[in-house]
């Protein structure tokens, strides 16, 4: 589990609309190659923001990434 991996990904989803669009179309593909544990990857693929928060994702980021908030 890496606080940096989870949060830098949240940050990118928040700030980079192109990356977010790719994530929305195919989350697994968008995350390919990123240094995430299986649990972290699964939490993002299922848009499980509670799990992402448990894994170290900052609350303000988790709550402000469009697309996560809706799930």
């Amino acid at each position: 589990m890496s606080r940096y991996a989870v949060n830098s990904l949240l940050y990118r989803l928040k700030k980079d609309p192109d990356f977010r669009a790719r994530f929305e179309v195919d989350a697994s593909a968008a995350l390919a190659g990123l240094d995430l544990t299986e649990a972290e990857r699964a939490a993002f693929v299922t848009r499980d923001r509670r799990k992402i928060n448990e894994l170290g994702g900052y609350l303000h980021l988790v709550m402000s990434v469009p697309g996560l908030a809706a799930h």
Partner: protein
Amino acid sequence: MTEIARMGERLTATRPDALIVVADDHLNAFSFNAVPALCVRIGRTVQRMKQDHAEAFDKVLDHMPEEYPLHEDLANQILEKGLDAGFDLAMSWEAPVDHAFLSPVNTMHGTRPIPPLVPIWVNSFVAPQPTPKRCFDFGRHIARVVASGPWKVGIIATGGLSHFPELSLPRVGETDTVFDRKLIHWMEAGEHEPLRNLGVDELHKTGEHEFLNWMVLLGAVTPARAQVRYFGELPRINLAAVEWSLP
């Protein structure tokens, strides 16, 4: 809101040359590239943060002015004398300001002109944060700089009282009114030592993480006693409007 607008009227009546605003960043101004513990905004102007898909808090920014003048001299002196005094402050010429700065500033001023600002960021929630003691002592430093200069200066700190304990999503909605009342009691009594001795952990557990911003202000105004204008238990957050008048 009414109380904050009235506080703004009283602030304007003192005709400040500069207004220091202490608030925390919500990973808007800074990224994981660098998370400064304490950062002074220098330069001539500061811009309002722009963001697509703004969250509710930042949507309110849309109606506010896009650019604000800074008080260059005061900001530079806080920074330079701070480094001399052993505060390893970060500096920024480019970081924009978000709702944490602009909502209170605009609510306080309405349509009246806003004095030149000195925005100061405190890292309130990306662990490890600066300690309450360090924030308070930095506030003491600000007071010394202001006392040694020719300006009349106002200072505001923003941030909620208890909310989002442990920054845990399932606990959004919980507050800690008992702890809030304790903080308020100390501020009203001008008892700043127990506040200075709070632990970052204690603030994290109770959801008082943004109180670090208040600690900078308390250091700047100590030993003045707080006058509480408003205390409210909102659905997700407890808030207070608190005022200090200095002779």
